[in-house]
């Protein structure tokens, strides 16, 4: 009843743990049965191991959190060797989230992932493009087209492209990514935001800006998902501030095929289970047999 099929891959339910908040699942497995999840998106990977950013990495705002982890990760090889076997031992869809600073890095990362049993690749195009002065790949359509089409050319896995809410025009960006070959879109990544420590008279983060996530961004993320789902023919995965079944259902009614939960995992480690159960309860109460009946219904 809760299952969804996204480009041929069967998810037992529409709940996916969002990249960067769930590691590779290992730690959460000690707390609950993570095989109950529809899928897990890995911590954002880069071709080579990264140590991430210096200074404070997390800061709370009203109904939100700012993070500046800076893609600390073991690199694609480390992932394949040390994390993937564990993830594949679970009964859930395994998504490798990939970032990078240059197109070559992305390409090499994809080549390595091609030869694994990863179920799907999620391309994080919010990373600063080191060659174009640090502006993220996901801001301008032309940059996004370039990277997505090159990745698509060689990627043997279903390709989910994760959009940045900082894109100049989210709908055009979505259309562009689909034209470039994206099989699925996920949105949104974090909003560029900041906080200032007025006592120290300095930005809270060494990098000055950081990424905003959590319930505070939900109304904007929902609007973007609604607009994008109406503009493209590929499945759309909704992300941004989802912490309850009500939230998840709003995204589904806005047109999302599935949803991801990020910051919510920090509120309650097994919040995804509560959300899955809540969706099921709603469906029973409203006599809905399949999510298809309400997807995009508004």
């Amino acid at each position, binding site marked *: 009843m809760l299952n969804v099929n996204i480009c041929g891959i069967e998810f037992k339910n529409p709940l996916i743990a969002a990249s960067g*908040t769930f590691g590779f699942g290992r730690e959460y497995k000690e*707390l609950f049965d993570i095989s109950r999840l529809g899928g897990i998106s890995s911590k954002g990977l880069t071709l080579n191991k990264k140590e991430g950013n210096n200074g404070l990495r997390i800061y709370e705002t009203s*109904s939100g959190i700012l993070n500046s*982890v800076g893609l600390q990760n073991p690199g694609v090889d480390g992932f394949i060797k040390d994390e993937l076997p564990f993830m594949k031992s679970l009964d859930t869809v395994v998504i490798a989230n990939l970032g990078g600073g240059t197109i070559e890095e992305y390409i090499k990362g994809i080549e390595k992932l091609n030869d694994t049993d990863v179920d799907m690749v999620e391309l994080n195009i919010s990373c600063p493009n080191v060659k174009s002065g640090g502006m993220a790949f996901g801001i301008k359509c032309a940059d996004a087209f370039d990277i997505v089409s090159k990745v698509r050319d060689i990627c043997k896995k279903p390709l989910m492209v994760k959009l940045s809410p900082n894109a100049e025009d989210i709908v055009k960006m979505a259309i562009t990514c689909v034209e470039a070959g994206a099989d699925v879109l996920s949105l949104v990544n974090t909003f560029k935001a900041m906080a200032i420590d007025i006592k120290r008279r300095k930005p809270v983060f060494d990098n000055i800006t950081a990424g905003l996530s959590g319930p505070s961004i939900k109304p904007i993320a929902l609007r973007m998902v609604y607009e994008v789902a109406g503009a493209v023919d590929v499945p759309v995965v909704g992300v941004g501030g989802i912490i309850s079944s009500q939230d998840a259902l709003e995204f589904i009614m806005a047109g999302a095929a599935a949803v991801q939960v990020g910051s919510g995992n920090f509120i309650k480690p097994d919040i995804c289970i509560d959300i899955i159960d809540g969706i099921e309860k709603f469906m029973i109460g409203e006599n809905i047999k399949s999510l298809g009946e309400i997807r995009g219904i508004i």
Partner: protein
Amino acid sequence: MISYHKYSVCENEIVSKGIYKLSVKGSFEGKPGQFYMLRAWGTEPILSRPISIHDKIKDKISFLYEVKGRGTVQFSSLDTGDEIELLGPLGNGFDLSGLKGKVALVAGGIGVAPMFYTAKELKGVSLDLYAGFRDDTYIIEDFRKYVDSIKFSTDTGKSGHKGFITDIFDPSVYSSVLCCGPEIMMKKVVEMCNAGDVPVYISMEKHMACGIGACLVCACKTREGNKRACKDGPVFNGKDVLFDA
């Protein structure tokens, strides 16, 4: 095994100005230097708060905390019977197994919190407590039956040595040092211990989100790269840590 449950507060009493002791009934796991993520609210603020095990007896666990910001303010307003969520025990804790001879516990301010359970569990060694405070001292008398001596200081000179605890601490007579307090104070203690080649273990305080090792927001810089304070720590070998301050 890490567990995540709701409990009800059995005691929450003020022990000194801005310092509270909160106890929860139940059978808990956890060793000295480990901590729990505490939560006594719904969805806002998003993050739970890491608090060390202060004491643990058969059917009860206690936390000693200082009121700092909105999370600890909310803890301080809890009454007996109110709900609190606990995730833990988390982190590595102090490795007490290899300790012998003369051991020093060095605490700065609320860093004294984890030291009590540590002192209680640390057997077969000769143990001295060094504790530095700003103005008022707290709970140090509770240590009497577990330590051989208690030395303390206050910044204001209200009691004990006037000045820093590091003024009156000499690592050279110890075979190991366990330390918890403000980063600047731990840095100093590590330097002193390194100078005398005395092993020193410190408990690092980093802001945390998941508390279990998944999100990497609690990175602690070490000679071997970034470590997760919540999972690989919070206790690190003082020689490995690269201090920010």
